[in-house]
């Protein structure tokens, strides 16, 4: 043990880092780029799986009296499709991009809590595996992605299918909350000197705002799904009207989460749109402050309109009117962003490359989704088309239009930074064209089907309904969309196999990620920049921070990003992985017995103790000497 002269001075670290196997290093990695990439790849895998389920459903509905799937399997497929796209694709994908790019864009070396991000990844993976294992063993959830009671209650859904859904929520929300906390604190406390809040790139702002939404929305679904699981497992009566419970309480709790969830999914997408528009036009964003305020306003308003999902439940008229007003109001901040993008592009000469093509596709599709959203905010229309394919069309226009098109644009834009390779422009444009045409052919006819009365969540229909033609067209569109996604994937795989190194800044970007090589250097090799403007690569000189050891991270002040102190970065550790295993064991055990909770907590606690046990590699002091000095009146 180190003996030190000054008892109040920090003692030197007492142990040296050990070398480990490649598997250990992979499991232990806490590098934000590695974790971000893992999130992105895993989420894209779930996107493909959810897409396959969608295509199976479209095949079933392509003709009247389809024979491919029975009603029970169909119920499992649409529930798993919705749950996959919401919980295993959209949110983790957006958060994965945040994990990768937020530290780069704010000039940080790593995340504020890198081990927590590692835990978030593993718990997310285990949740996804649980869902698909259940589906393949004919125990897939079958009560819809929103699991309405009383259908999802113990009386009408015996067995473990709904419990699997409820526990999927626990897995994925634990992950989402862990990432949200990480992104907020990284943005607040690890910005490069000079990168004050009013200079943050818009993608970072949208990621920050979204993370705050996650913080306040996800607890609602955690409480709701826990209450549902308890109703089913131990006989509580939260949602049982016979004992004073309330089915509408479920809907309130679910949609208090569920509606903000929509914005949680597409606000990062809008952030990507801003980044690509600025880069494509080579101009500063028109209305930076209004765009930031529009993000914040959307986040606040998003919590005030969940009841428009419940207009068909017979609410008091005053309540319905209020939520109609709020639902229409939220179109305003989104409109502000639209006009700011148009003004930025106005008169510029953007090159029609793949990222920008996806953004143009976004403009059209998201606008249509927004307009049908305003229609659905009106009670008479809402009640008329409730639970029809019109709503299916609307939500896909909003979510694919608002999130998937910008996401494909963002992935194309940032692919060189993610991988060090450039995508083929021709294949990129081809995939964009296929996805855009396929999407519109698949989903626009669903508006018509809904207006003609075709309900959602039916596995078959009669030829006399007259729905066959548009369903066939919709199925053809869905396969075209799927082909477009495959071309995108092929483009990525082809680029990864090529040997051409992408330049650090292929688009002449404005923000800090483009100042790093492609892909960026490891965290401990990365230098912290000093910035002087909102567009640090375009305006003002770019400086650098000195005096930082390889394992140190700079902490700056929240608002003005002035340097405050220096922290040692947490070392890589396998304990997040093992803690995630223990937590997964707890969650899965709770599917079968309430005793899974106390038993699981023992293992989780043990894992956490090892996780947080000091390794004596940080600055510290000898206890005895410190006590001796303090007793003799020494102070710091």
């Amino acid at each position, binding site marked *: 043990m180190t003996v030190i002269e000054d008892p109040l001075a920090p003692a030197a670290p007492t142990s040296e880092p050990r070398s480990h196997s490649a598997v250990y290093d992979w499991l232990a990695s806490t590098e934000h780029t590695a974790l971000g990439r893992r999130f992105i790849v895993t989420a894209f895998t779930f996107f493909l799986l959810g897409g396959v389920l969608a295509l199976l459903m479209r095949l079933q509905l392509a003709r009247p009296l389809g024979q491919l799937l029975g009603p029970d399997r169909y119920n499992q497929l649409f529930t798993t499709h919705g749950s996959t796209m919401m919980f295993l694709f959209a949110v983790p994908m957006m958060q994965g991009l945040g994990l990768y790019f937020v530290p780069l864009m704010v000039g940080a070396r790593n995340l504020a809590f890198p081990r927590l991000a590692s835990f978030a990844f593993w718990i997310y993976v285990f949740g996804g595996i649980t869902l698909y294992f259940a589906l393949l063993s004919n125990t897939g959830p079958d009560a819809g992605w929103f699991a309405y009671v009383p259908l999802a209650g113990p009386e009408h859904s015996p067995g473990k299918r709904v419990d699997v859904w409820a526990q999927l929520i626990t897995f994925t929300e634990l992950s989402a909350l862990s990432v949200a906390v990480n992104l907020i604190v990284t943005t607040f406390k690890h910005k490069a000197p000079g990168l004050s809040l009013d200079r943050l790139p818009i993608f970072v702002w949208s990621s920050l705002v979204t993370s705050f939404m996650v913080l306040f929305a996800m607890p609602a679904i955690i409480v709701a799904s826990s209450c549902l699981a308890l109703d089913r497992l131990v006989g509580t009566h*939260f949602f049982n*009207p016979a004992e004073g419970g309330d089915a509408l309480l479920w809907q309130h709790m679910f949609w208090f989460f569920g509606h903000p969830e929509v914005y949680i999914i597409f606000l990062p997408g809008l952030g990507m749109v801003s980044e690509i528009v600025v880069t494509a036009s080579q101009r500063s964003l028109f209305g930076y402050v209004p765009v930031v305020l529009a993000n914040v306003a959307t986040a606040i308003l998003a919590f005030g309109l969940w009841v428009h999902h419940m207009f068909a439940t017979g609410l008091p008229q005053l309540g319905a009117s209020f939520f109609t007003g709020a639902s229409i109001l939220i179109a305003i901040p989104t409109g502000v962003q639209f006009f700011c993008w148009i003004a930025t592009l106005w008169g510029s000469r953007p090159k029609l490359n793949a990222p920008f093509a996806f953004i143009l596709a976004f403009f059209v599709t998201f606008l249509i989704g927004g307009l049908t959203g305003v229609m659905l905010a009106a009670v008479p229309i809402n009640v008329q088309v409730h639970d029809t394919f019109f709503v299916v069309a609307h939500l896909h226009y909003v979510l694919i239009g608002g999130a998937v098109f910008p996401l494909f644009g963002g992935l194309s834009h940032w692919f060189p930074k993610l991988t060090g390779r450039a995508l083929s422009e021709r294949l990129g444009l081809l995939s964009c064209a296929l996805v855009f045409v396929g999407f519109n052919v698949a989903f626009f006819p669903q508006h018509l089907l809904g207006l003609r009365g075709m309900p959602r969540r039916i596995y078959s229909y009669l030829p006399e309904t007259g729905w066959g033609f548009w369903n066939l067209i919709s199925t053809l569109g869905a396969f075209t969309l799927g082909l477009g996604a495959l071309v995108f994937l092929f483009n990525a795989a082809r680029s990864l196999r090529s040997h051409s190194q992408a330049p650090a800044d292929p688009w002449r970007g404005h923000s800090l990620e483009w100042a790093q090589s492609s892909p960026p250097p490891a965290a401990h090799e990365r230098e912290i920049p*000093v910035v002087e403007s909102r567009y640090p690569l375009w305006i003002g000189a770019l400086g650098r921070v000195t005096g930082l050891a390889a394992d140190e991270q700079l902490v700056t002040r929240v608002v003005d990003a002035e340097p405050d102190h220096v922290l040692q970065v947490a070392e890589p550790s396998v304990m997040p992985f093992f803690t995630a295993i223990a937590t997964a064991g707890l969650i899965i055990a709770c599917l079968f017995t309430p005793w899974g909770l106390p038993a699981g907590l023992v293992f989780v*606690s043990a894992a956490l103790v090892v996780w947080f046990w000091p390794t004596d590699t940080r600055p510290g002091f000898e206890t005895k000497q410190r006590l001796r000095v303090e007793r003799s009146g020494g102070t710091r």
Partner: protein
Amino acid sequence: MTELDARSGPVVDVAGLPRHATGLRTPLWWGTILLIAIESTCFAILFNSYLYLRNNFDEWPPDERLKVLPGACCGALLLLTLLPTWLYRRAAHAEHFQRMRRWLVIATALSLSAILLRIWEIRAVPFSWTGSAYASVVWVSLGMHTLEIVTGAVESVFMCVLLFRPRIDLKTFEDVESSALFWFFSVLVWAPFALLFYAEASSR
């Protein structure tokens, strides 16, 4: 060559900056506050569920009344733990090790005692969670808060063990301060529940 290689802007030397800090300067403090925000929302939703379900009953509470004494004793002791918690938080902020350790041990002992009283409180609940929606929401609130304080107490015990090791990380001051912040939340979040549950239980 990247922009960083070619830069010519200002150089900021951080070699002289402190290598640790306490309070709201630290990322951990912010992380703790955000964790508190998450859990506050969970408890707020449960609290609202209680109020929402009340509309479904002509008589409220519908089941046998909660016994006030065990709940009051547990609540009082939980409030009492806040005093040593405040003192060890202050000592941690000032980086006074001896004082911090002393008050943390006292606070931990009181927290563990409060958990014993909580067991008494739980055993005194005169109905099962299967009785009605009221019984369910009371049991789940009580259970969720018990999990909260048990987690906090286990964390305090862990901190105490660390503070008796021969070598202490400087970061421990920051950890202990955050732990205190979390315990404050864990105790105070129960106040609206306890007031509502026991006020309604003692009303005629």
